[in-house]
């Protein structure tokens, strides 16, 4: 006897609601899990998850959900926070509002479409990933310049006032020449390099010592009244 039989055993699928083919729901359905409509629903559906209208399903209702998949008949406005998908068996009359809309071949649809913002945020984040990478690439360069400035600061006590002036422009060159070494004994080497750089700088900038001036004067041919390159006058002797 049918009376002897117990009510149907609960199906295992947790977190999914099914409106079966023989069921007619008239009213409002709300919830936080997937809903599969194989029967008929009239009224309103408001979910935080996916609404799936099967091929046998008929929904005459306003649908709000994260995702809406239609393979049956829907009459009413559909609004999704993620996507609306119209499968080949879909027949939809109503307006669609969703960031993503997929319409398969065979689907029938009449209504307005509003593709709202929000669904592309993931894609946008992916595009922004490259920019942050280039920013990290720039960081080692600034670190190197910081390392170069440190030894020059150590050298300042030995450097003269004149060389100190030159040092500023020379520092980058020091950084380029200096071979990569440990923190120890770097002090001496750097000092030498700075001194050389200061010497050449002073030659060019006319702040040379007397010795250098005499050397230049000897070498310079006396016939020319034209001042040597970088000198103001020839009468330096």
């Amino acid at each position: 006897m049918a009376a002897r039989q117990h009510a149907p055993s609960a199906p295992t699928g947790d977190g999914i609601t099914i409106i079966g083919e023989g069921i007619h729901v008239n009213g409002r359905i709300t919830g936080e899990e997937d809903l599969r409509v194989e029967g008929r629903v009239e009224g309103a559906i408001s979910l935080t998850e996916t609404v799936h209208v099967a091929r046998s399903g008929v929904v005459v209702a306003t649908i709000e959900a994260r995702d809406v998949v239609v393979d049956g008949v829907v009459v009413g406005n559909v609004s999704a926070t993620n996507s609306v998908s119209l499968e080949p068996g879909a027949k939809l009359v109503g307006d669609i509002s969703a960031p993503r809309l997929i319409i398969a071949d065979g689907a029938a649809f009449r209504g307005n479409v509003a593709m709202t913002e929000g669904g592309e945020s993931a894609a946008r984040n992916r595009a922004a990933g490259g920019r942050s990478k280039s920013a990290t690439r720039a960081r080692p360069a600034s670190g190197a310049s910081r390392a170069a400035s440190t030894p020059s600061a150590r050298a300042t006590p030995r450097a003269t006032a004149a060389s100190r002036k030159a040092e500023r422009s020379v520092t980058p060159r020091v950084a380029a020449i200096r071979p990569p070494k440990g923190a120890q004994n770097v002090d001496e080497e750097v000092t030498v390099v700075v001194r050389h750089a200061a010497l050449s700088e002073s030659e060019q900038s006319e702040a040379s010592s007397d010795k250098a001036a005499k050397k230049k004067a000897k070498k310079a041919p006396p016939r020319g009244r034209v001042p040597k390159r970088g000198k103001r006058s020839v009468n330096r002797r």
Partner: protein
Amino acid sequence: MANTVIGSTIVIDGEITGDEDLVVQGTVKGRVSLRENILVEESGVLEANVETSTITINGTVTGDIQASERAELKSNCRVVGDIRAPRILIADGASFKGNVDMDG
């Protein structure tokens, strides 16, 4: 054939009719009218007048129940309302308040 299941987080406010088995894990308010079996799970809440063939209650039902064959109240269930059915089973531990009519 897939049974109809009202999941635990689902609330239906309105009317359910049909000729198919129904499992209620969530909440149904309004009216339920079936020609088959209803199973109210422990998490299920039925605040509705119910017409059906058989009903098995593990959860909570508030409303009148009219079963053409059988109504079964399991232990731990809570029922408030009148029951009208030819056969009514009430298990030890069940909570029930209302009238019983077994005339059929």
